[in-house]
């Protein structure tokens, strides 16, 4: 019965039938497409007509008008004589700052708590569970206000500021250098420390102030040294990995990197005679001026958002880890891998594909929840732009459109990055 010779099959006739799924999907799509286009068109037409009828001013010209209000945290230079457009930028950067740092913290805390919920130690487990239940079940607004009041209550007024000096530390280093026969360098260092004049760091209920470095002419060399150090670290990491691959030997990358990062610029600074001075915060009148401020609004918002979101992330991580079958960690253990390596090399990489999609949702949520910062006076995008600016100019359509567009952009970029990462960790299957 073997018939290996392929004879031509019957001519292929495409019969059109109402039940053909291809045709069906074509029809359905056409209907949907027409509907969507009609919706968009009618909304736009209505808006145009209404705006024209009510004679409401529109356009983006207002962005160039002078804003006239001050802002408490500005990552770029800003004062009230600058434009609304500038205020928008300030608000956007503030949102991005708290969202970015918050995402990092939330991820760290969330992973730790998620793993802790699976711990065999009852106390750790109970603490982690309590953490999740409390943070997840209280509205974020409350948590933000709680941290704000807690932070403010814990800190003294400006006049009773807690201060931390750098001088004792530097003196100690200098005497250490002296001890190992580098007295001249040590002397130079303490002279530099003298220019720092302790104390330089202040903490009070107006926030944290740290000295602002002011770079003088020779400082380019230090900068170059820093860049060199970073490159050196990069090369060291690559070399260390290659060495591990080649010989199986581990190399203390972290400590080397730390040494390079501190050592190289320090040497450069010694050679050039410490060309950096610091603008120290000074108590003048009501509060400190100068230096770099970290405001309590930011701290409270950051705490609250990280801790709140971490509660959700912990659950996601727990579910992710549970989704990796026990056989995987048993197999790793039976190969002699220690628990931390098992977690790092086997469990987490597989858990990630379960974790990442909901994690993305949480990142988006954190970013959006940062708008709640308005309750504690954090000047984020919504507070500055969709709040104060909207109120001053009244141009609701433009402002809300811009705000929505900005958030959409942020979230789409986040989603894209996460999807890209998701594809990287996705399993290859048949």
């Amino acid at each position, binding site marked *: 019965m073997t018939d290996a010779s392929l004879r031509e099959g019957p001519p292929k006739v495409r019969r059109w039938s109402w039940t053909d799924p291809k045709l069906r999907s074509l029809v359905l799509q056409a209907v949907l497409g027409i509907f969507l286009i009609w919706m968009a068109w009618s909304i736009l037409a209505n808006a145009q007509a209404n705006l024209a009828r009510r004679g409401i001013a529109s356009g983006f010209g207002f962005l160039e008008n002078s804003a006239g209000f001050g802002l408490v945290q500005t990552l770029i230079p800003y004062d009230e004589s600058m434009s609304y457009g500038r205020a928008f930028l300030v608000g956007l950067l503030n949102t991005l700052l708290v969202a970015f740092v918050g995402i990092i913290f939330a991820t760290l805390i969330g992973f730790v708590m998620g793993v802790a919920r699976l711990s065999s130690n009852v106390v750790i487990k109970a603490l982690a569970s309590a953490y999740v239940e409390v943070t997840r079940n209280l509205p974020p607004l409350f948590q933000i206000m709680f941290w704000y009041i807690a932070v403010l209550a814990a800190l003294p007024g400006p006049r009773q500021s807690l201060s931390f000096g750098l001088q004792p530390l530097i003196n100690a280093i200098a005497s250490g250098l002296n001890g190992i026969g580098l007295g001249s360098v040590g002397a130079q260092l303490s002279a530099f420390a003298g220019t720092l004049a302790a104390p330089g760091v202040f903490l009070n209920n107006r926030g944290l102030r740290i000295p602002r470095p002011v770079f003088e002419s020779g400082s380019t060399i230090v900068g170059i040294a820093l860049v060199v150090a970073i490159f050196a670290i990069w090369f060291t990491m690559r070399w260390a990995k290659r060495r*591990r*691959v*080649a*010989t*199986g*030997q*581990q190399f203390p990358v972290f400590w080397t990197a730390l040494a390079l990062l501190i050592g190289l610029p320090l040497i450069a600074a010694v050679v050039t005679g410490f060309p950096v001075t610091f603008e120290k915060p000074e108590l003048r009148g009501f509060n400190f001026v100068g230096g770099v401020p970290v405001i309590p609004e930011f701290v409270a918002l950051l705490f609250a958002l990280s801790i709140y979101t971490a509660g959700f992330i912990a659950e996601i991580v727990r579910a992710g880890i549970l989704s990796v*079958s026990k*056989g*995987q960690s*048993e*197999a*790793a*253990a*039976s*190969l*002699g*891998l*220690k628990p931390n*390596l098992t977690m790092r*090399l*086997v469990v987490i*990489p*597989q858990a990630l594909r379960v974790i990442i999609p909901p994690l993305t949702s949480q990142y988006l949520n954190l970013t959006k929840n940062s708008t709640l910062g308005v309750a504690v006076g954090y000047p984020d995008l919504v507070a500055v732009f969709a709040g104060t600016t909207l109120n001053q100019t009244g141009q609701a359509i433009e402002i809300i459109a811009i705000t929505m567009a900005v958030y959409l952009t942020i979230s789409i970029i986040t989603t894209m990055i996460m999807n890209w990462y998701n594809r990287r*960790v996705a*399993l*290859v*299957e*048949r």
Partner: protein
Amino acid sequence: MSADPILAADVAAAPPTAIELVSVNKWYGDFHVLRDINLTVKRGERIVVCGPSGSGKSTTIRCINRLEEHQRGQIIVDGIELTNDLKRIDEVRREVGMVFQHFNLFPHLTILENCILAPTWVRKMPRKEAEDLAMHFLTKVKIPEQAGKYPGQLSGGQQQRVAIARALCMRPRIMLFDEPTSALDPEMVKEVLETMVSLAEDGMTMLCVTHEMGFARQVADRVIFMDAGQIIEMNEPNAFFSNPQHERTKLFLSQILH
């Protein structure tokens, strides 16, 4: 066939008793799952364990590399007694390879990466060397050409052979197999069994839970029959199959040999 040179060196250096179980007892909660198990496996011995489902076969061999903790008695593997000391456990696990019924390959790593993971991280072997070793064993189990694929892309028999190769890459002195063929097609069973036979010929110490009686007859030095957490009967294969002593063994063998 001559012994595998890569393995031979290791085997020679080891103590003469590979595994010793002395009065081992284990409970799951209140359930007494292993009852007074005594067993001595000499180096190079090949032992097949059989018995009805739930009799404690898996538990026994999982205790041997401490995937389960036993509560009473002693387990000495490769001269090292298993206690709560994590270091010792790691040492033992390095010397004991295990092949699971469900393979438990790491799906996010390629076949080659699966094989070199432990040698590079645990034995700190250079990657090149580890890869050579891996390819050696992959060739031995006849799937060197699959090295770059992911486990999800292989057929079941191929996956099972990867699991064996992965365990061998740690160059263990002792191999434990937990029903390595029960999830396979008949054709693949053959492939896997052949691989195991060739290992057995290399003088590896092997403890194998299986119901492939052909394999037991061909390879085993001793066959152990377990029931209800106890070793009921233990004998060399010919005697075991032709002349079972215990009633329970007779019943079981009558069911399984068709």
